[in-house]
């Protein structure tokens, strides 16, 4: 029971990070392997806001999210749009965007290592017990979960109940036909990419409240987010949320029952199962 609750609480934050990636890959068609770096940067900004200015991470998200939105929009329009224009087919764009985002990954990682060094950081925010079903849990984890759920719900409202959201979904389904219904694909893709970055940054800000982070852990989170996205089915918001919760629970189970050093093995075991049995995602339909 304790594993289930802890895992679900962790899964909430994972969901937010993975939703960011699924928007970037599903709608903007960019396999952004530097996504974890956005997350780590957000961790550091939240840390800095809290320790030097006393701004709580929840309030900090109001600053971090628009900043990440802008930064990712600049990355897309400046660096990635030329690749989209150059690509003759989707495979070529995939290879190019993977390589370009590797470049960004190492560049950002190197810069953060220069500024912060390789040390681990954390800070105490709401480190008080909070009781669920009679057992105590850290309040910061519960708050992070609630905040993540709230942001995800806002995203859901946006995607399924606004015109702009419908445009993002249309581009995700078929970028070639979207212009037929007067959607500016290039602009929508840039927006989806930026929004994805903002979501991941929110996830990072929440993560930093209960997780010890350092400058070089971005790749690990990119990896987790990617596996969640694939498990959930690319571009599938509900599938990604479900997959994030599954991943959170199974990681917690392995860490507490077998060995905390084997969490990646748990992730991979899930990944292999999905690849072998449901490569289209847990909620996905078979490809036509």
């Amino acid at each position, binding site marked *: 029971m304790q594993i289930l609750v802890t895992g679900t609480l962790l899964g909430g934050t994972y969901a937010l990070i993975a939703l960011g990636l699924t928007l970037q890959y599903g709608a903007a068609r960019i396999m952004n392997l530097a996504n974890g770096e956005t997350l780590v940067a957000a961790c550091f900004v939240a840390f800095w806001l809290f320790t030097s200015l006393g701004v709580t991470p929840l309030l900090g998200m109001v600053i971090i999210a628009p900043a990440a939105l802008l930064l990712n929009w600049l990355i897309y329009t400046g660096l990635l749009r030329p690749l989209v224009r150059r690509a003759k087919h989707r495979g070529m764009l995939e*290879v190019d965007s993977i*390589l370009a985002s590797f*470049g960004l990954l190492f560049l950002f990682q190197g810069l953060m290592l220069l500024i912060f060094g390789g040390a681990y950081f954390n800070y105490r925010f709401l480190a008080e017990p909070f009781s669920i079903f009679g057992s105590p849990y850290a309040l910061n984890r519960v708050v992070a979960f609630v905040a993540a759920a709230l942001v995800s719900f806002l995203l859901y409202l946006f995607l399924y109940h606004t015109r702009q959201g419908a445009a993002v979904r249309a581009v995700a389904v078929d970028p070639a036909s979207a212009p037929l219904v007067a959607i500016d694909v290039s602009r929508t893709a840039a927006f989806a990419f930026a929004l994805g970055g903002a979501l991941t940054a929110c996830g990072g800000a929440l993560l930093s409240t209960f997780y010890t982070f350092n400058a070089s852990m971005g790749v*690990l989170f990119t990896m987790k987010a*990617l*596996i969640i996205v*694939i498990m959930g089915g690319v571009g599938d918001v509900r599938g990604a949320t479900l997959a994030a919760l599954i991943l959170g629970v199974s990681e917690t189970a392995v860490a507490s029952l077998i060995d905390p050093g084997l969490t*990646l093995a748990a992730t991979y075991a899930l990944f292999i199962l999905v690849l072998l049995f449901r490569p289209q995602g847990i909620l996905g339909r078979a490809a036509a």
Partner: protein
Amino acid sequence: MIGIRRHEMWTLFGGAAALVVLSLLPLLTDGFYLSLGVNLVLYAALSTAWSLFSGPTRFISLAGAAFFGIGTYSVALWLNNLPFAALIVIAAVCSAALAALVGAATLRLSGVYFVIFTLGLSELIRQIVSWSQSRFAHKMGLYVFTDFTEAHLYWMLLALSGVVFGVGWLINRSRLGFALRIIGDDETVARHVGIATARAKILLFMISGAFTGVAGAVVAPRYAYIEPQAAFNPMLSFTVVIMALLGGTRRLWGPLMGVIPFTIVTEFITARFPNQNSVVVGIAFLAIVYLLPDGVTGRIEALRERIRISVRTRVDAPGERAA
């Protein structure tokens, strides 16, 4: 397979002559230049092995560090019980087996799954190795003491590079190589003309992985003390990818054109600014994507083509140019 043409004969002779000349290096120098030479032949073997698979298929493999680490560990684990040659065979077999497993899980699907899977592979194996070492052996590292000097390692790695080139050359002129080029151009077409695409890809990935594992095994004595963190260093995978793409993967000798400058530059930079390696790697990736999408060799060939055209148009009558 049969029927070596005249210019191929010359290429073979040239390659053999180059190997002989290069093998003289340890007789001329030791110390810094020999150690640089070891790095060069090591990365030449690794990048060429990488592009055997990833060149024609365009599937970016980041599993290099995983195979390399397996090779290193095969030597470290059984060095006292078995002859070195047997260890190299073990390294090749283990790496090929891992490649077969990874290939069977991911190569039937699209390329993105493969990239993601290999991205975390070395970290996964590192976790498993660390865990089993602390669980069953109660120690983290292993010692590798041999009588090999730097010169021996250099010769072995040079021989390995030679074998990788030879195998690459044979594959290129075989049915398998042809099949892979078709897969790289258009996988749907390849399937329609009756190529067992998954089998061809897995087979080549195994060959490429086995060579990487052997390279890890050969170079193991250089480290003397082997622990998971160093043996499965993910940076190795990225370095190999950069070198191969920088040189260009269309030609067999392409990766070599990336290995030479990049090894020397990193040697220089790690000596001056030891902590800025990842910034350099980042810039190298961006430079490849935006400035050299076909690598150095691609750029050279484009230039050569342009010169050829301009020479021909000057010779031809102006009226014929339009035709």
